[in-house]
Every structure is written in structure tokens, then in C-alpha cells.
């Protein structure tokens, strides 16, 4: 069966989707990715969809699911490289992908992930001595 490879890079997982997704492929990716987050204790997931020309409601939902699932496994997700035509279509379709972090390209996505994780680490260090709770 087809599978989309998941690469590990330090604290992050990298997924580059190079083919147009069909439903089962997207579902397999969702399952694989959540497993990998657990297995590698990844702090961030970066999904590059620059080669994806079609995102319909099902795949949009899978992307949203991956972000929410990773989140409750203590990992942030950033989707990068969305084509303008795909963004237009998603909004017209009625799928604003709320709750999914996005960045224009891989580099910015990586920086966003790093900053999100750094913020989190800083909070830990700063908040703990006071004993105050973060929001």
C-alpha cells in the first residue's frame, strides 16, 4: 500500500506530501503521524503541502485532525506551502482550517515551530519558581 514518508529531524517530524491525496492515503498518514509523534516524542510536526493541488473537505478535515491529535500529544503542527488556489478553494468550500498553524514555506514553518516550542520552554522556566499557573 502507498504510504507517505515521515522524516525525523531532531525534535520535529517532517512530512512532504508529493502526491495528490486520496482518502485512504490521508487516513494512513493521520494514523502513522500520530503514532510517530508518540514514538519519537516529537515536539513539532511540519507538513509541506506545496505539491498538493487539491484539498477537499475530507482532506481538510484530516489536516485539522492531525493538528488536534498532535496537540493533545503535546506537539505543535504547522502546515506550509499551501498553493493560493487551494487557499481560495478551501475558504469558498467553507473550511477555514481554524486551529491549524500555517506558514508560507518550510523555512518560515520551521522558525514558527521553533518559536512556539521555545515560548513553551521559557514559560516553564519562568512560571515554575513563582508557582503561578500558566493560562
Amino acid at each position, binding site marked *: 500500500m502507498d504510504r507517505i514518508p515521515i522524516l525525523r529531524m531532531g525534535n520535529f517530524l517532517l512530512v512532504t506530501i508529493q502526491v495528490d491525496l486520496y482518502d485512504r492515503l490521508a487516513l494512513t498518514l493521520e494514523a502513522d503521524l500520530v503514532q510517530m509523534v508518540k514514538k519519537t516524542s516529537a515536539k513539532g510536526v511540519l507538513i509541506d503541502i506545496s505539491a498538493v493541488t*487539491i484539498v*477537499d473537505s475530507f482532506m481538510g478535515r484530516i489536516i485539522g485532525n492531525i493538528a488536534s491529535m498532535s496537540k493533545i500529544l503535546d506537539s505543535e503542527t504547522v502546515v506550509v506551502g499551501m498553493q493560493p*488556489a487551494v487557499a481560495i478553494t478551501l475558504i469558498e*468550500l*467553507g*473550511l477555514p482550517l481554524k486551529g491549524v498553524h500555517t506558514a508560507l514555506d518550510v523555512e518560515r514553518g520551521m522558525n514558527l515551530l521553533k518559536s512556539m516550542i521555545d515560548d513553551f520552554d521559557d514559560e516553564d522556566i519562568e512560571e515554575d519558581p513563582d508557582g503561578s499557573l500558566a493560562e
Partner: protein
Amino acid sequence: MVLSLSKDTIQVVREQDVVLLRNRIKEVAVKIKMGLVNQTRLITAASELLRNMLRYGNGGHCVVEIVSSGRNNGVRLTFTDKGPGIPDIALAMKDGYSTGKSLGLGLPGTKRLVNEFDIKSKVGEGTTVTIIKWANG
């Protein structure tokens, strides 16, 4: 008056057929010089309808046509299945309504993405959805 310039029927019974059909639609859309954004809208709309057909109608077939009306060229897609049919089309066209576990964006979302949208359904007989996207519409 909408004239059909070319006609092509593709059977859709497995999920992998979706990719084939998408490619076919893409070819046709490029042939009539449809812009990239409209191509994306059309293929996304087709993708939604195909999923419906596979999930609720046990597959079916899609007719891909190049149509022309006046100076306008476009792509007309007709999806036909012999599934259970839709009892209440008005309800099925409502945003957020779904009998499955989906988001319920399929039909209303598709309508927003294309220029013409027509749905006919008979309970127990099946459903036919016809969409047209004009090259510069």
C-alpha cells in the same frame, strides 16, 4: 443554449479511480484554457461529489464534457449513481448537515465552487448531480 463538444464516460467504483478522474478533468480543463484557480475549484468540487458517490451510492459513473454557450467554454460533469437516493434535497444542501460522519460541506460547498449546479434524486433509484464550470466564470 449549452452545446456539448466532447463527451467521455468514466466509471468510478474504487477510491483509486478518483485520482484517474481528477487527472482526466484536469486535462479537459487545461484544453479549454481554464485558469488555475477555476481548475482547482472544479476538481475540488468533483472530488466532493465523487466521495459522495462512493460513500453513499456504492460508486457510479461520471460523464466529462466540454460544453460551450455563446463565447463561453466550460466543463460539464454529470455524476450518476444507483444508490439509495436523497429523501430531502433541501436538507442535504444545508451547510453542516450530514447523515455520515463528515462535516456536511460536500454539497453546499460544491455549489459554491461551480457556476451551475443541479441535483436530482429519487429514493431507491439513485442520484444525479450535474455541475458546470465556465473557463472564465
